[in-house]
């Protein structure tokens, strides 16, 4: 069976869905951030596959921007985690339900 665009889109959808499930189910804030990375990567697969099968490079360019934004997001997110951990001494998001510090 030949592999076409829809296969890659399915893979992308599965990765995104697993990431979303982890985002909602896991309680550790670091793992939640990892699940966000997983979702971004699923989106990247869709962008690159669309770029390949449409013969346009815009998808790949967009994927590069997604990577840059993801790197920035990780840096700021982990800094926030460190700041929160210093104040609250926990990584469980159920215990971090207020913003009062």
């Amino acid at each position, binding site marked *: 069976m030949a592999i076409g665009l829809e296969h890659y889109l399915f893979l992308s959808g*599965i990765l995104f869905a697993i990431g979303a499930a982890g985002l909602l189910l896991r309680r550790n804030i670091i793992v939640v951030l990892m699940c966000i990375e997983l979702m971004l990567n699923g989106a990247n697969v869709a962008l690159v596959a669309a*770029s390949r099968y449409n013969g346009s*490079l815009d998808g*790949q*360019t967009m994927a590069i921007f997604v990577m840059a934004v993801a790197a920035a997001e990780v840096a*700021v997110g982990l800094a926030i985690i460190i700041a929160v951990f210093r104040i609250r001494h926990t990584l469980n998001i159920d215990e971090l339900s207020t913003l009062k510090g």
Partner: protein
Amino acid sequence: MEAIVFWVLAALSTGGALGVVLSRDPVHSAMSLVGTLFCIASVFVMLHAHLLAALQVIVYAGAVMVLFVFIIMLLSKPGDKEKRLHRGGMKIAGMTVAGLMLFILTVSIVHEPAPEGEYAIGHIRAVAMNLFTEHVPALQLTALLLLAAVVGATVIAKRRI
């Protein structure tokens, strides 16, 4: 051949993604995520996006995941993790997984050689031409975003400004 490589990569990346969600230890989640990102890099190679595959390995599987593991080590409570280091099987498992990743990437690169011609889809020059001619404003905004992220991360994580 292409179908076999695709299905193997799809199975491995889905399994790695499930490992991220299901494993109890954040370090195991991080290792699963590294494997998943590697498989996605191989998928990019299959899609003739060699530049993106290289960026994926360098930026994601390299820099971002090192940051994650660093934070996990920094914030885990003492006594949590000492037991499982230096267990004999772990070394062999680690070697096997690393070898498997290299094998996967090699297979997909050999199967899908770099595109011919300077302006073929996925060629680094073609991507650069697209990036630096049509998307210059977005590129400059991304530079601004990265600068803001560096400053913001430093300010937030600093104990006292």
